[in-house]
């Protein structure tokens, strides 16, 4: 038994994307509730129909959401372990609840608000533990410092260059410029990229995702039921999460074997995803790739088989990920690098928009979209949505 094609996304709701801290005085639970209300409304349902929640990255307080929204009864509330790696997988978690009969209308919601603690310095806020001592003693203050170590190794092994990272950043910005909801819509030239301050060499400011406030929710239900609801269903063809021991704690471990080290950690999840979906990389029409750091887009393109191992740099340099003329348009909404960082949920959102035909940068005849969760400690996750 698999979850293949048995469930669908029936509703989508989002708050605006706010530059870090500017969503105040709204509270984070308030933003989350706004996204949920919008998602069930979009589906033609009400909050009283919700009977399940599927989260990732520690999730939200289900009884608080029930209390404030007046949800009468919940039959399923679960969170994928790990952090932003689970964004795409939480949709699969919801699907598994529905396929197993544990719930009928499951909301997946992600949200973030960076008022006091910025993500850019996240590790400096971690509690000191015996395990953390082995990285926090080295001045690895933020995720960018850690991913820079992976990026440089990829450059060393495969000849990847900052020109390749620049192509990811610029291509993504071009997409954001068309998106009225994107936070960063100023043009970015190659000179702008190379003149930007270096934050964690070889990663400069424009290799880093934005720091954003906002929340996004989707409503997952059976495909059969979704057909009777307001919107055309976006089918959940497959979703997998997890990963291999050779990736493991990844950034917090740094002892990955060489091949896994210079990767996005997604290779096992990708294999499972294509097998579950019964499709190949060549069937994917566009991809929403978790872009906390531009080099990690390149490594995931390799993990998901759009090019060979180590060939991600030349692949993006060929124009393959561009909306205009690319064979695989990537992060068509402007991604987390330029539209907004909602812990991966903006990628789920854009996947739904593409398959509904409502995307700002619509890929013609898009029928299959890949969505990935962030390369981080396991689990990492993937999702294939279908028209």
């Amino acid at each position, binding site marked *: 038994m698999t979850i293949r094609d048995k469930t669908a996304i029936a509703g989508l709701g989002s708050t605006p994307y706010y530059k870090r801290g500017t969503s105040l005085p709204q509270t984070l639970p308030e933003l989350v509730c706004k996204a949920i209300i919008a998602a069930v409304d979009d589906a033609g349902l009400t909050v009283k129909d919700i009977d399940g929640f599927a989260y990732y990255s520690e999730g939200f307080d289900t009884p608080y959401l029930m209390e404030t929204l007046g949800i009468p009864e919940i039959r399923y509330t679960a969170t994928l372990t790990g952090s932003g790696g689970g964004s795409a997988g939480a949709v699969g978690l919801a699907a598994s609840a529905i396929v197993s009969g544990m719930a009928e209308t499951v909301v997946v919601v992600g949200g973030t608000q960076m008022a006091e603690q910025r993500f850019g310095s996240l590790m400096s806020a971690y509690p000191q533990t*015996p395990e953390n001592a*082995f990285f926090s*003693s080295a*001045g*690895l203050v933020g995720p960018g410092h850690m991913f820079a*170590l992976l990026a440089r*190794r990829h450059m060393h092994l495969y000849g990847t260059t900052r020109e390749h990272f620049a192509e990811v950043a610029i291509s993504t910005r071009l997409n954001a410029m068309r998106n009225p909801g994107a936070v960063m819509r100023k043009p970015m030239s190659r000179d702008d990229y190379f003149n930007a301050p270096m934050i964690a060499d070889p990663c400069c400011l424009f290799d880093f995702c934005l720091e954003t406030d906002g929340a996004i929710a989707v409503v997952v239900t059976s495909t059969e039921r979704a057909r009777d609801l307001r919107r055309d269903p976006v089918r959940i063809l497959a979703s997998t999460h997890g990963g291999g021991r050779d990736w493991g704690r990844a950034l917090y471990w*740094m002892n990955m074997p060489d091949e896994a080290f210079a990767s996005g950690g997604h290779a096992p999840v990708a294999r499972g995803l294509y097998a579950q979906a019964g499709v190949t990389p060549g069937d994917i029409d566009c991809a929403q790739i978790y872009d906390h750091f531009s080099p990690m887009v390149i490594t995931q393109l390799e993990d998901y088989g759009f090019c060979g191992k180590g060939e991600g740099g030349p692949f993006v340099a060929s124009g393959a990920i561009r909306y205009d003329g690319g064979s695989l348009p990537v992060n068509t909404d402007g991604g987390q690098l330029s539209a907004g960082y909602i812990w991966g949920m903006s990628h789920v959102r854009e996947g739904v928009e593409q398959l509904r035909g409502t995307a700002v940068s619509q890929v013609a005849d898009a029928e299959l979209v890949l969505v990935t969760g962030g390369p981080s400690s396991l689990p990492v996750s993937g999702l294939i949505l279908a028209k």
Partner: protein
Amino acid sequence: MSEISKAPPPELFTLTTDQWTKPFWEAAAAHRLVAPKCGCCSTFRMPPTPFCPNCLSQALEWPELSGHGVLYSYTIVARAIIPEMAAHLPYVPALVELPDAGGVRLITNIVGAPLDALEIGCPVEVVWDDRPDGVSIPCFRLVRTD
């Protein structure tokens, strides 16, 4: 003239240990670089954990290492993203592979190095960052090959 790398900001780290990690830090306080080695199958692991991932033994040895390693990867941090970093820039978080510990890697820093001399594959050797709180942290410097 290239800038010289410093040690990372000490304020951001307070050492806590458990019975599995304590021997590493106790040895460090005596300026001895050690690594955990399975007492049963001799597999090294880093950081220390309660079981050998190869054979599940809990027997552990802590052999002293030569202190020589190879630079596996690094980043240059030259911009403060929180105020505590400002006085310690630039610093160079790095991964150093330890050939005499089965190639396990330490997450560490390269100190005292001209930034333009950093290169993956460089030989490095341990030096000790003795902090005001009495904790010593293993860092590495480039080994001159000229």
